[in-house]
């Protein structure tokens, strides 16, 4: 492989169309005779519907139809596609439209279709619905208590599942402990906030029985399958297209009622129907993330040797189980509790709990930030309890370098890692010892500098299909690619994965170009259209490069092998005597006797003179099912200063060290890390979806839900180590979620470190200025009380 293209930070080819506003998103698409749908959503978190009258809406100007649940019986319930085994999973029926009961603010009650979107929204105001409001519950632990409002008649205590991970002798660990540290951690509910809200455009051809759905999805093939299940349209007559998709972060994995309703309207009215959610709807009804209450204990010896981690988690699922939801707080969380450490014992109970809130799905990192936060926070707490530098404690317990497999107590086998090297490298980079000295000097002057350090390992590249089956994921997790070299040597690549902002149109072109020596600009990557691309399981879980990239490189190698055979034939040499470099196939020792890939491509298509038993054309496809997950890792450092007068936090420095294996394009890696870090910092400092006691979403818009902004951040320094995955053909691991997984706890660590001399108790996230200020006041009061008692 040429290192000239692989590893170069060329510009993203996606960007010109995105930056100039010429990219076509679902909402940009217009079809002849297209009409518009608007959804009426429940204003109550929990209520019985006592009356619906659509007659005034139906009579409004431009209105074609108004449907309620009674009209859309043809639609099956929305399926849950992660049937977690051994967890007493109880799936509540997830109707496309609420029939007699609404269970969260945003539940769909009716749909109006009109000639224009304005007319549709005008008609929504004319729908009459009477509700009998019921007491609601949105806190997952409260919802699991006896006496809490019950969301679904046949599911006691709202418990959707109870899953346990156990390894080692946890009782012995706690019996032998010299130190036990405990903490209650709230991983608050977050709103993913993709820049593009969700949208659907459905076109029905009554004559042929064919349905096309343009949709903001991260996984068009899964959606095609689920749309077939829900609408009854056979898969061969269904086409799902993900046009330009403006970010997803997990929120565009799920199959949604609104999309199926849009299909229903198109099929019933025989008109193309577009639905485009408003930002307010996006906040209420597009899936949320996180929402854990974690009660955690870590057992250790006084010298810092960790012995065991015990935890009980209540994970809010919202009113219904979203497509992949059950796997997030379990498989992607509980199995990662060992982190980068030699943890001898673990036991965690995870309660998935129905609440009167928006369904929860994967959100960038999906389970792993919540796991990393737990172990890393407990390491910090242990360090301060036994008076050890948090970095020394980490190094003492870290799994040493391994190149081909290390099995941890949860049963996972990490692929490769060198955690101590990464941590040492970032500490050298930030001059950790000097930083600590600066911090001590600043404290003498009444300034509160905080230094946060955290290490992480994540499970990515989902994953071996056999494992997927064993853990109840209702799909395979392989990927596929087709590489087609045209007569002029230009290349079309068709992938099953569905990038939506990550940059694989560029990096995948780099992979192909590096492998067969064509120019990167001569490779075009197709994705996101089930009629065009081969089957794939979607873009999430940092799997597109780790799995789809492997499929692509192996398909490209097949093309290369075939090209070599043809070149040998044309040069009248034996295949064994052929060599390859920089796009040329030549006879060993005679570099002038050569055929370029373009020459071979032309001859393969002309087919005038092919080797015996070799097919015409130059094309190959590959289905790649990975033998294991990949396990990227790293360490991050944050430096903050806390303003003791106001509680405001000033982010002074952020450094991320990530090891995702070899990097196809370091500029794109840096961009992924930047975005990930920022989203993680958002959780630490600003973001929370807040429901009031009636289940109303109080943070219903960007006026109240605070997202990170450029002017509230510092420059983010990105460095790396390179530890190839032993099982990926190129050693690649994936990097989409790394930043988010590490940065929340790194920031938390920095703020708590800064506040340490003020005697501050653990803060709830987001660490707003007021929360920090109040904690400082309480710390002051307690110290004053302590002094008074001593006197």
């Amino acid at each position, binding site marked *: 492989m040429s290192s000239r293209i692989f590893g170069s930070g060329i510009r993203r080819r996606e960007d010109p169309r995105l930056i100039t506003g010429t990219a076509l998103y679902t909402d940009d698409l217009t079809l002849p005779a297209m009409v518009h749908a608007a959804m009426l959503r429940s204003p109550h978190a929990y209520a019985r519907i006592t009356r619906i009258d659509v007659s005034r809406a139906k009579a409004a100007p431009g209105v074609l139809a108004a449907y309620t649940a009674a009209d859309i019986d043809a639609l099956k319930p929305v399926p849950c596609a992660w049937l977690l085994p051994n967890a007493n999973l109880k799936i509540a029926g997830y109707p496309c439209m609420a029939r007699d009961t609404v269970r969260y603010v945003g539940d769909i009650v009716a749909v109006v279709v009109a000639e224009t*979107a*304005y007319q*549709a*929204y*005008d008609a929504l*105001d004319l729908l009459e619905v009477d509700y009998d409001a019921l007491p609601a519950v949105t806190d997952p632990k409260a919802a699991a208590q006896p006496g809490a409002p019950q969301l679904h008649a046949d599911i006691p205590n709202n418990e959707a599942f109870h899953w346990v991970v156990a390894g080692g002798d946890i009782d012995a660990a706690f019996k032998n402990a010299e130190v036990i540290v405990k903490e209650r951690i709230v991983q608050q509910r977050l709103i993913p906030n993709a820049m593009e809200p969700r949208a659907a455009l459905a076109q029905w051809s009554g004559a042929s029985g064919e349905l096309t759905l343009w949709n903001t999805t991260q996984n068009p093939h899964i959606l095609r399958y689920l749309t077939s299940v829900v609408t009854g349209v056979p898969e061969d007559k269904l086409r799902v297209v993900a046009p330009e998709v403006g970010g997803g972060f997990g929120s565009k994995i799920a199959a949604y009622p609104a999309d199926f309703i849009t299909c229903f309207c198109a099929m019933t009215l025989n008109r193309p129907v577009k639905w485009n959610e*408003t*930002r*307010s709807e996006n906040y209420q009804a597009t899936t949320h993330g996180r929402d854990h209450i974690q009660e955690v204990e870590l057992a250790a010896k006084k010298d810092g040797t960790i012995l065991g981690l015990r935890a009980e988690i209540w994970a809010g699922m919202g009113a219904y189980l979203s497509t992949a939801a059950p796997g997030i707080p379990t498989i992607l969380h509980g199995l990662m509790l060992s982190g980068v450490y030699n943890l001898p014992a673990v036991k965690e109970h995870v309660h998935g709990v129905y609440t009167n809130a928006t369904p929860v799905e994967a959100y960038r990192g999906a389970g792993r930030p919540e796991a990393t936060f737990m172990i890393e926070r407990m390491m910090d707490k242990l360090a301060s309890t036994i008076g050890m530098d948090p970095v020394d404690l980490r190094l003492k317990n870290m799994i040493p370098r391994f190149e081909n497999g290390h099995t941890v107590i949860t049963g996972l086998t990490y692929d490769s890692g060198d955690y101590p090297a990464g941590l040492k490298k970032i500490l050298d980079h930030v001059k950790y010892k000097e930083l600590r000295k600066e911090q001590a000097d600043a404290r003498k002057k009444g300034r509160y500098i905080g230094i946060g350090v955290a290490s992480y390992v994540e499970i990515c590249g989902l994953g071996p299909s056999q494992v997927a089956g064993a853990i109840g994921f209702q799909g395979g997790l392989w990927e596929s690619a087709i590489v087609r070299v045209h007569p002029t040597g230009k290349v079309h690549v068709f992938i099953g994965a569905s990038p939506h902002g990550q940059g694989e149109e560029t990096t995948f072109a780099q992979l192909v170009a590096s492998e067969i020596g064509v120019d990167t600009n001569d490779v075009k990557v197709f994705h996101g259209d089930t009629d065009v691309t081969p089957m794939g399981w979607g873009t999430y879980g940092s799997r597109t490069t780790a799995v789809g990239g492997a499929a692509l490189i192996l398909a490209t190698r097949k093309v290369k092998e075939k090209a070599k055979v043809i070149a040998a034939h044309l040069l009248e040499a034996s295949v064994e005597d052929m060599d390859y470099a920089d796009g040329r196939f030549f006879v060993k020792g005679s570099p002038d006797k050569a055929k370029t890939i373009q020459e071979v491509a032309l001859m393969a298509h002309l087919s005038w003179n092919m080797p015996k038993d070799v097919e015409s054309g130059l094309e190959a496809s590959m289905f790649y099912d990975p033998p294991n997950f990949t396990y990227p890792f790293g360490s991050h450092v944050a430096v903050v200063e806390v303003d003791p*007068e*106001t*509680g*405001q936090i000033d982010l002074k420095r952020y450094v991320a060290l990530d090891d995702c294996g070899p990097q196809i394009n370091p500029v794109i890696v840096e961009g992924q890390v930047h975005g990930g870090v920022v989203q993680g910092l958002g959780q630490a*400092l*600003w973001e929370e979806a*807040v429901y009031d006691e009636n289940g109303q979403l*109080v*943070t219903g818009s*960007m*006026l*109240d*839900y*605070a*997202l990170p*902004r450029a002017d*509230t951040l510092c420059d983010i320094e990105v460095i790396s180590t390179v530890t190839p995955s032993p099982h990926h053909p190129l050693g690649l691991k994936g990097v989409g979620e790394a930043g988010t997984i590490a940065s929340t706890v790194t920031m938390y660590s920095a703020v708590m470190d800064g506040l340490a001399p003020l005697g501050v108790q653990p803060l709830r996230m987001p660490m*707003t*200025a*007021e929360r920090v*200020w*109040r904690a400082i006041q309480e710390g002051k009061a307690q110290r004053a009380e302590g002094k008074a008692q001593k006197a």
Partner: protein
Amino acid sequence: MYASEFDYYRAGTVAEAGELLRKYPGAKLLAGGHSLIPLLKLRLAAPPALIDIGRIVELKGVTVTGGTVRIGALTTHADLAASNALGESCPALAEAAQQVGDPAVRNRGTIGGNVAHADPASDLPTVLTALGARFTIAGPRGTRTVDAGGFFTGMMTTALDDQDLLTAIEIPAKQKGQGMAYVKFSHPASRYAVIGVAASVTVTGGTCTAAGVAIGGLVPTATRARSVEKALVGQPLSADAIAKAAHQIAQDLGADILGDLYASADYRKAVAPVWVKRALTAAADRAR
């Protein structure tokens, strides 16, 4: 985000705007639209008609004559922030304008629309209140002028009647020995002021001879901090004197303190002196 139906009219002059207002009761004036249009899209406002005054040229721009800064009501935040004349004669207003919203808001939003909306968390009303601005209003019975205290009558309410049009705002230009500043504790989501403080101090011979201080964000309407001002005048502007004066803000805040999810009323009240101190310190530095 689809507004209800409304009619649209465009006024070419102040007189035309007045006529249209009389002709279409309930109509709303549209300037930069950055307060009104979000309300329309959320269907929180549904006026029958909008009268677009955005192209009335005579209402745009900053002029300084005879010790008075005159700002046309349609001057955008970006133009305020970039105005050299304003930077010299009323730097706190330029400083505040630079902190309104984001570039898109500053490029479209106008000072007139901003003050007419009278959002309690807005920046410009606080500065205008501190600096003793006067507001020129064209109404059905001719033109009148009111001071800031008379203009901002309460939360989201002003002295403007249905058929009035704010045409200009006048502020006394900065004098020798005068320093002014606007400091802001921004809400992380909305970027409105959790607390905003505008301060102007005039120093003669080492002593503060005049002070204008106002606070916004945590009170229903921009509020003049008379107790703070009183504590400053006649004092040398030492760190101690400033800190002491800043604590007087508690006397000026009144009983109605605003709070939200991000910052409660109690918290805002408790940290208000810190922000007053910071504004006074910056203004005092610039007075020297």
